[in-house]
């Protein structure tokens, strides 16, 4: 059956087609052999593209496998098992140590890769489920014909979808097709994790890369939907600065705290408060991405901070009502809230917490039940109702709660601290071996300085494991919170509201400098706060690269962490640097879903600067990015399955990522081998010759042990085969500078990156020439169009 769809009018779009290439009408293409591509799902889509379609629209798992094999051949998976056993089925557990196979025949490599695939599937599902909810809600509210219009300066609205799905979405309704596609792929990918499916680790990795790509799409769908429907900033480099920090919340007002990622319940609260003109009566604040997205919706909302603030802030008792939506929410939130009589509202199917579903209940009745304490909290799946209930409850209980004694006093803390047996288990239980025992022992003597050290920059990120382990049941996080509140003043910072995508015009401006190497790199600080030594490291890295003219992009908890740092003059980095996507720009794209705009920008470079067609053309675009766009992701505190999906997704586009040391617990990295020259051969498409290349980028997924190592590695990972000599000089200059700063010497591998003398930074010329001589260096040709394509007979 083919459904005939009447051509429909669309809201006129403010766009100027740069050339005929971008006309998008009346081209019909076959969807190819993808399973399940017939039937009603095709109805809308197949009529609408007018682009020369590349080879892989809507790729199935195996369709990009040959590209994956290229990546995985060069960047071989490096496995570090977190467990020697497998416990996935009832034959197990099986011991897979050192070559032993499980009862299903699996070996440790494949098992690790399966684990990574599973994590990528979970992470990707988190974003896609989130996108599905957003889209469902927004479509119902705004209609599926709402045009996807990101404003004057953005013609390429959905670069990832264009490449992967082979067409551009014009309306909210169109985004559904992308979701349908990715949901189908997700089920196939998850299926492959079943016992007795894939047996080869490389094929598991190829699937993980596919899951990462699906994650990219899910995020792009989610962010575009919320931007256009909720009128969030549309690539605005001057998005406002919004308040950030525990110190920005007015404790004298009723406080509603939103935790999670889904902006909808938060927007329901904002709307209710505005309608009731209660703006001055309450504080609405948030933790994690929900916070960021609420500020994109309304800049008067405040950001408490990243995930590392969660337990501290809840323990502080400031929040009267805690509204949780989905993702990254402490799973013991109800228990913690109960400790200080805060009320919890759950608002999505993802987090129900065993609470009664009162979605259909009368609002007055819900409020009264909550106030009387008849119920511990409520599950309310209607965001408008959430807005009303949260507000009314907060206004009602704030005063009473104000009289609650929530945290221990300082002298109580000292007394408690004396109970410590110095067993040391708090330190052993700490993910970062932070010296909690020392802090407690000192506090027992009235010296809080070590607690203050732990408090600042979330060096202790209040995960609570020490507290769980303490044999004296000391409330370590409450102690930490109280001391921090008391001694650490001025926790008032800011963050630029998430701007969403990069404008086409910016790409036009920076495309050439990036590709040719004149802008030394685009560095993206993303992800969570599982930092080895607090958030200051991230801010310092950002500062270092901003000072060096890199473009620094950020999102999510990373963006908040960067905002929590001030220089000697008391300025935050957002105050010091503009939000332009340009050298020295500090660009907060927004929340985790906004991460999609980072590969998105790279894709747009390939298209706008190099005129590479996007639609269905994944491999060519990724190849272009890998070889020419000096971008590097940094997920210094990546903890979650989303983070691994994000990293794996951008890896497939050819963008390297540096993780913090905890990243090693994802079990798999993609490491290059500089000692194997054959791995670095490239095809110069201009000449058609396969020539030896340099290890650029050297690794695809790397875990560094500390900030210093990471900083140098990041600079190195911005090098690309396509750099002009001028660009290469610049990049090497930063690499050498930083290496000298942190290692004291010019790097030993510098000869690998000097192709011709002109590549050498002038200032280091003499030293380097000497090194080159020692290494028997010979100049070699600079490839004109470096590529991994059309090698090995594709």
């Amino acid at each position: 059956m083919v459904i005939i769809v009447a051509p429909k009018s669309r809201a006129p779009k403010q766009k100027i087609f740069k050339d005929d290439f971008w006309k998008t009408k009346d081209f019909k293409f076959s969807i190819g052999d993808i399973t399940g591509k017939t039937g009603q799902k095709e109805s809308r889509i197949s009529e609408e593209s007018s682009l020369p379609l590349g080879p892989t629209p809507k790729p199935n798992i195996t369709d990009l496998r040959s590209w994956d094999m290229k990546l995985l051949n060069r960047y071989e998976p490096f496995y570090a098992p977190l467990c020697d056993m497998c416990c996935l089925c009832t034959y197990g557990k099986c011991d897979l140590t050192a070559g032993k196979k499980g009862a299903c025949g699996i070996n440790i490599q494949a098992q690790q890769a399966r684990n990574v695939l599973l994590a990528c599937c979970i992470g990707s599902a988190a974003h896609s489920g989130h996108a599905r909810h957003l889209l469902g809600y927004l479509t119902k509210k705004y209609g599926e014909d709402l045009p996807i219009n990101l404003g004057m300066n953005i013609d390429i609205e959905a670069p990832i979808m264009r490449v992967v799905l082979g067409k551009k979405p014009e309306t909210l309704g169109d985004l559904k097709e992308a979701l349908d596609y990715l949901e189908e792929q997700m089920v196939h990918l998850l299926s492959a994790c079943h016992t007795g499916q894939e047996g080869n680790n490389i094929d598991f990795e190829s699937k993980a890369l596919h899951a990462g790509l699906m994650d990219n799409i899910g995020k792009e769908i989610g962010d575009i939907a919320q931007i256009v429907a909720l009128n969030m900033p549309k690539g605005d480099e001057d998005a406002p600065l919004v308040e950030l920090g525990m110190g920005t919340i007015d404790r004298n007002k009723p406080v509603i705290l939103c935790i999670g990622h889904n902006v909808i319940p938060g927007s329901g609260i904002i709307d209710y408060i505005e309608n009731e003109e209660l703006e001055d009566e309450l504080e609405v604040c948030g933790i994690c991405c929900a916070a960021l997205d609420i500020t994109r919706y309304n800049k008067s909302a405040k950001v408490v901070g990243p995930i590392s603030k969660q337990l501290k802030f809840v323990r502080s008792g400031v929040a009267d009502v805690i509204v949780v939506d989905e993702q990254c929410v402490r799973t013991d939130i109800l228990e913690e809230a109960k400790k200080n009589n805060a009320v919890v509202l759950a608002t999505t199917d993802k987090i129900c917490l065993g609470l009664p579903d009162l979605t259909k209940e009368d609002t007055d009745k819900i409020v009264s039940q909550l106030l009387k304490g008849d119920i511990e909290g409520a599950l309310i799946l209607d965001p408008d109702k959430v807005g009303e209930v949260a507000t009314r409850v907060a206004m009602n209980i704030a005063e009473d709660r104000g009289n609650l004694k929530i945290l221990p006093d300082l002298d109580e803390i000292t007394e408690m601290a004396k109970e410590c047996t110095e067993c040391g288990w708090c330190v052993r239980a700490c993910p970062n071996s932070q010296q909690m025992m020392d802090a407690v022992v000192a506090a027992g003597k009235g010296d809080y300085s070590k607690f203050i050290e732990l408090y600042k920059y979330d060096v202790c990120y209040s995960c609570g494991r020490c507290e769980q382990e303490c044999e004296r049941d000391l409330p370590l996080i409450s102690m930490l919170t109280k001391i921090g509140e008391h001694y650490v003043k001025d926790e008032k910072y800011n963050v630029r509201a998430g701007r969403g995508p990069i404008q086409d015009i910016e790409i036009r401006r920076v495309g050439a400098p990036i590709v040719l190497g004149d802008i030394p790199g685009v560095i993206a600080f993303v992800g969570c706060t599982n930092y080895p030594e607090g958030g200051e490291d991230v801010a310092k890295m950002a500062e270092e690269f901003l000072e060096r003219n890199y473009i620094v992009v950020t999102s999510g908890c990373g963006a908040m962490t960067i905002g929590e740092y001030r220089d000697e003059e008391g300025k935050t980095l957002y105050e010091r640097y503009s939000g332009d996507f340009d050298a020295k720009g500090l660009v907060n794209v927004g929340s985790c879903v906004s991460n999609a705009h980072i590969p998105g920008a790279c894709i747009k470079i390939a298209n706008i600067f190099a005129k590479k067609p996007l639609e269905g053309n994944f491999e060519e675009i990724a190849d272009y990015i890998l070889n020419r766009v000096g971008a590097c992701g940094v997920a210094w505190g990546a903890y979650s399955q989303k983070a691994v999906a994000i990293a794996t997704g951008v890896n497939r586009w050819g963008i390297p990522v540096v993780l913090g040391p905890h990243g090693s617990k994802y079990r798999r990295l993609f490491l290059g081998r500089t000692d194997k020259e054959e791995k670095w051969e490239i095809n110069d498409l201009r000449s058609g010759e396969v020539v030896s290349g340099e290890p650029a980028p050297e690794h695809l997924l790397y875990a560094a042990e500390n900030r210093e190592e990471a900083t140098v590695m990041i600079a190195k990972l911005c090098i690309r085969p396509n750099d002009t000599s001028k660009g290469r000089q610049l990049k090497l200059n930063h690499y050498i500078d930083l290496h000298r700063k942190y290692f004291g010497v010019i790097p030993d591998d510098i000869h690998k990156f000097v192709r011709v003398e002109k590549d050498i930074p002038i200032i280091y010329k003499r030293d380097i020439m000497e090194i080159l001589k020692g290494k028997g260096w010979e100049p070699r040709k600079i490839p004109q169009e470096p590529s991994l394509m059309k090698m090995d007979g594709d």
Partner: protein
Amino acid sequence: MSERVIPWQPTVIAGPKQALLVTPETAKMMIKKAKRPLMVVGPIAAEEPIINYAVEISEKWKLPIVTTGDAFKAFNEMGIETKPYGIVEIVNLLKDPDWNGVKSEGQHDLVIFIGCIYYIASQGLSTLKHFAPKLKTLTLCKYFHSNADASFPNMKDAEWFNYLEKMKMD
């Protein structure tokens, strides 16, 4: 029936195979038996007094040193030659039977870790446990590293320094 010790971070327990808890004497035996041992020193050992122990132990047993993180700098400032690698890079090389070692004299048969961040070292040791069957791993940290072949026990500083002292002697 082998006995088990709880690793420093207790959840590093990975499976049935677990490091042998060793004294300095046994550790030295392992070094003596090795043909091409290597010492890997992380940033935690790049400060006094550990750095001095590391240098003296390496000199005593003629161990080439790889530094991880930014540990290179401290050694370089002391005039000690080391080769810097990321911990994941050196582990990646150590697991490749075809790699020729830091001195290009052939793959190492023993690697001695000290001063790397506990959990990333655990992960690296796990890699080597699984994928470098011919390589022995030994840790001289003050933490029991269950993923190694042989490890010092969990210790307090004083005890540890005493162990390291002994490592400097025959």
